[in-house]
């Protein structure tokens, strides 16, 4: 069985139909990807702005307090939803579609309908943001967008994904590369969990704690499984390609895939949740088994690079992806260790949870996607980035920002949790004790926001350059003097 072990060399062998040239594939993806990446970068900036407002409220509780729209309990979910649905899923879909087209050696199916889907998705996220700010939040974490916005988002996703599946189906290269398993699974994972959560929580309204269980199940499937599937697909694609090496083992990747989909989807129920005891117990076991996923990814990547981890520093995109990989490994181990009930008892309800969540959604997923965007966007548009130095600057601000956000909150959270175990420490003192750590994390927020400005400048500049060049050519052609040539019949 000839199995492609390196994404770019898979052009020989069993290809039944003539593969499409890379340039044509990129051309077919161009407009959808430009829309995905540009709007994702814009949402990211939006998320930062709301995140900063929420963060400043810990410095000055009176900040913007008189406005119902900007109260902490609305700004924070607004920030999280802009981040998850505006940036993470949207840019992840862009990267996924491009990888599916490239790996299948076929053009993107029906790019125009993908564009309609992307517009629908963005409209949905905007409606959701409006809903949250006006007090229409559903009250379920990571699923705050009200029903009307959720329908739009769902419709947009379906429109995008149907053509993704069709692209996958009409591939010219029949051999599947590792990344394609992950992407194909991710494509239909989201509609299932999103429709389940929205139907059972908003339409049919499950009774009592069943609601919370479903909300936890949804969050875990989105943040661990969907992010894991798309993020790892990008890692398995970009790292071998940019380092010009073969992926070490397809079978190790298969183990990663199975462990992620089988056990990743069972996590998420907090150990202390007031539900039947088997649920958190099973969640603890599944989360601990997540260590196998992490180790298999780590070994695979280490052997792919032949131990030369410094290769990651060679290319700006690889830097982002290397950082994402490290976050994935650290985050996975932390989750597994902290799932242990005695330790979970300490970190539950503290800022540690927030730090761990950000390490996964931003340190791992967003960083990998940044790397992928920085590597894909110039190829798709056919131009280098207008400000290559800003790419490096973005990496360092993002890396410093994540460290400044995650470390203080993790330490502060553990201290907060330890103090919560002692009833003789007044609660007000515990909250006060976390404030210095929160203030440090605001610096991290600021740095990350600055990085988002750089990203938007680069992606926006790239797109602007490309379309200006096109417009100039078109203008020249339109206004060129008509060459009078004699036509002889």
């Amino acid at each position, binding site marked *: *069985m000839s199995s492609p072990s390196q994404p770019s060399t898979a052009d020989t062998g069993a290809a039944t139909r003539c593969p499409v040239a890379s340039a044509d594939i990129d051309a077919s993806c161009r407009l959808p990807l430009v829309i995905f990446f540009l709007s994702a970068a814009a949402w990211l900036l939006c998320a930062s702005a709301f995140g900063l407002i929420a963060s400043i*409220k*810990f410095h000055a*509780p*009176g900040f913007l*307090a*008189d*406005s*119902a729209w900007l*109260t*902490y*309990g609305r700004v*924070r*979910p607004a920030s999280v939803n802009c981040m998850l649905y505006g940036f993470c899923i949207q840019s992840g879909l862009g990267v996924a579609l491009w990888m599916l087209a490239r790996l299948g050696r076929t053009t993107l199916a029906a790019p125009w309908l993908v564009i309609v889907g992307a517009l629908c998705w963005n409209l949905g996220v905007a409606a959701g943001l409006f809903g949250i700010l006006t*007090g229409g*939040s*559903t*009250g*379920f974490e990571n699923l705050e967008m009200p029903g009307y916005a959720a329908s739009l988002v769902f419709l947009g996703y379906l429109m995008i994904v149907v053509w993704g599946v069709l692209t996958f*189906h009409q591939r010219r290269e*029949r*051999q*599947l590369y590792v990344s394609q398993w992950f992407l*194909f*699974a991710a494509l*239909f*994972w989201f509609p*299932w969990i999103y429709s*389940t959560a929205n139907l059972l*929580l908003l339409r049919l309204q*499950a*009774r*009592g*704690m*069943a*609601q*919370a*269980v*479903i909300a936890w199940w949804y969050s875990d499937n989105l943040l661990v499984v969907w992010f894991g599937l798309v993020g790892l697909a990008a890692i398995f694609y970009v790292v071998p390609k940019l380092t010009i090496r073969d992926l070490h083992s397809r079978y190790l990747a*298969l183990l990663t*895939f*199975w462990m992620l*989909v*089988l056990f990743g*989807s*069972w996590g998420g129920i907090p150990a*202390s949740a*007031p*539900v*039947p005891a088997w649920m958190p117990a099973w969640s603890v076991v599944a989360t601990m088994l997540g260590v196998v996923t992490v180790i298999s990814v780590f070994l695979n990547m280490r052997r792919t690079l032949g131990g030369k981890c410094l290769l990651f520093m060679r290319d700006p995109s690889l830097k982002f992806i290397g950082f994402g990989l490290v976050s994935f490994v650290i985050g996975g181990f932390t989750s597994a260790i902290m799932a242990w009930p005695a330790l979970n*008892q300490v970190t539950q*309800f503290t800022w540690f*949870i927030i730090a761990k969540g950000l390490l996964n959604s931003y340190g791992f997923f967003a960083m990998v996607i940044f790397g992928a965007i920085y590597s894909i966007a110039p190829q798709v548009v056919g131009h280098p980035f207008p400000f290559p130095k800003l790419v490096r600057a973005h990496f360092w601000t993002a890396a410093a920002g994540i460290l400044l956000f995650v470390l203080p909150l993790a330490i502060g959270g553990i201290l907060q949790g330890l103090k*919560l175990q*002692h*009833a003789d420490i007044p*609660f*007000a003192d515990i*909250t006060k004790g976390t*404030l210095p750590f929160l203030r440090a994390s605001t610096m991290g927020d600021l740095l990350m926001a600055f990085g988002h400005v750089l990203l938007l400048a680069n992606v926006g500049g790239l797109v602007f350059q490309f379309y200006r060049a096109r417009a100039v050519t078109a203008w020249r052609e339109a206004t060129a003097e008509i060459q009078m040539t004699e036509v002889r019949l």
Partner: protein
Amino acid sequence: MNYGPLVFLAAFFALATSWCGFVLTSQLQIGRLQQTNTTSGATVTYPVARPGLARQGLEVYRANGCAYCHSQQVGQSGTVIEISLTDAGTNQAATITALLNLAQATNNEATVWTALPALELRASSSAATNLLSGLPKSFLRGSDPTAAKAAVKALNATSAKAQLLIVPIGPDLARGWGKRRTVAEDFLFDSPVMPGSQRVGPDLADVGTRLPNVQSHLVHLYAPRLVAEGSAMPSYRFLFEKRAIEHGPSPEALVLSGKDAPPPGYEVVPRLAAKALAAYLVSLHAEAPLFNAPMTVASAATSTPTNSPTSSGIAATNAAPATAPAK
């Protein structure tokens, strides 16, 4: 795996198992919960649906994202047995001797009984008479049910009435955040269910017992730092109306002081949303003894644990003293 359908089946199988496990089974197991009887002796069903205003308050709680800072899940690390006297009986000297004998056993076998502060007083001379005042009072704490039964028997033999109490313990409960751990039944009639994941502010599972006063909740919502100094809670002034006093001051006007007080001739009155939110907070109770969260209520007659605020006045009698909400 070189075939698309195979990948699809693999992922489908994985997601289907977790879907059946957590979505379907939680529907069957938790979604079908019914009201149960409390174990307090009287046949009281639990939970009782919240009154209308409190239900509206749940919507205010949801819309303003209170759950991002306040959890509603109290945990407990276990239960202990306490020996309490409800009646000193006629032969008080014998009762005291019996108690001290039990406490003496404490010194010999430290694992059986721990003397509670009420019994520690015995060292001083006047304590003997104070010892049996202010019953019912818990004297001993332990974890061995056989020893507890023997102790109750020994005390009852002296004409006193001793009672064996099952008391949940844990840091959350020691803070006065509840009487027992939160169970799924507590949320049965709420939608959306917002158990919360953060404790930026104190847990609210039992706040209606701890702080039964609607007016103090309103003041706290309007000016958090007036009630709890240094509180990180944002003020919710948009739930209130500052208006000129026209035909005499409103009975609903908040009593404010310091820089939060309105200028002379003005008053601050709660809008419907604020009143609803306060009604919801006051309706939050997690103190009914249930089969799956056992505890003994000191004397069943004085406590009627329900979810409605009407009972809160009575229930608050054996609650921890109401302190500032930051505790």
